[in-house]
């Protein structure tokens, strides 16, 4: 087997392993949906699994693992945008629960 063929086969094996991992994680999300837990616990567990799935897809399917500069560019911008959006959550709770500590 030549070096190029070995690299090609190794790459395909890696892709298959990542695909099976993502598939298993997606299955785990479906299992979590049937757990007898609160909606907030379910949300946290499902989102944690989704973040791991997304990270695997970004690193290996979209090859960000091979380009650190692009990886940091993507992560810093995305995390900033996601964090900037979080300011609204308290307001969504206020709509259902009222102003905290109000008489």
């Amino acid at each position, binding site marked *: 087997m030549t070096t190029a063929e070995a690299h090609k086969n190794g790459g395909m094996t890696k892709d298959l392993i990542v695909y099976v991992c993502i598939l298993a994680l997606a299955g785990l999300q479906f299992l979590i949906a049937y757990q007898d837990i609160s909606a907030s616990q379910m*949300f946290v567990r499902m989102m944690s699994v989704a973040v791991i799935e997304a990270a695997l*897809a970004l690193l290996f399917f979209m090859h960000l693992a091979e380009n650190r500069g692009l990886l940091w560019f993507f992560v810093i911008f*995305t995390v900033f*945008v996601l964090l900037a*959006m979080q300011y609204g959550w308290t307001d969504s709770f206020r709509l259902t629960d009222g102003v905290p500590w109000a008489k």
Partner: protein
Amino acid sequence: MTAPTFSVPAKKMAMWLFIIADTATFAGCLFAYGFTRNATPNWPRPFHSITNVAVMTLVLLTSSLTMLIGVRSAQNGDKAKAFRWTMITAACGIMFAALHIREWMGLIGEGVTLFHNPWGTPLFGSMFFSVTGLHLTHVTGGVVALIAVGLRYQGGRYNADDLEITGLYWHFVDLVWMFVVPLVYLLNLAH
């Protein structure tokens, strides 16, 4: 051939910038969905079966694998194989869209529309169709792009890099679905 100014070729960088912008779009859309769901006390849980969404997820995840096979074949110079796997990816996208529309028709048949929901707040229909509709639009655009780029690659006008860049978009569409499924479907499962 001159080396690119940056470590990433211009076309690939443009796709990454689009993906970053689209990430913000989907994040905003899903955040709006989460906000509305959280702030609405009588939010319905209408999904009794996960079979359809499980099959849709399997089809979309598998399409990412077929895309990878297509891109690797193109990079190894196997044009026929690359074209075949790209078209298989497009076929998976069409299957996903068909399953999605079938599910939409089922919900519409039960009386859920953009402004009406028989189980409570009409916001459910608005948010459900907006989020899944935005994703479905991306899948449809991806299928058109895959077919167009695949045909041009086959005809010799595009190369393996173009196929890889289209693949990046397809993987992104797949990635977004990983967040849509738990938020829109699994958290609304009837227990």
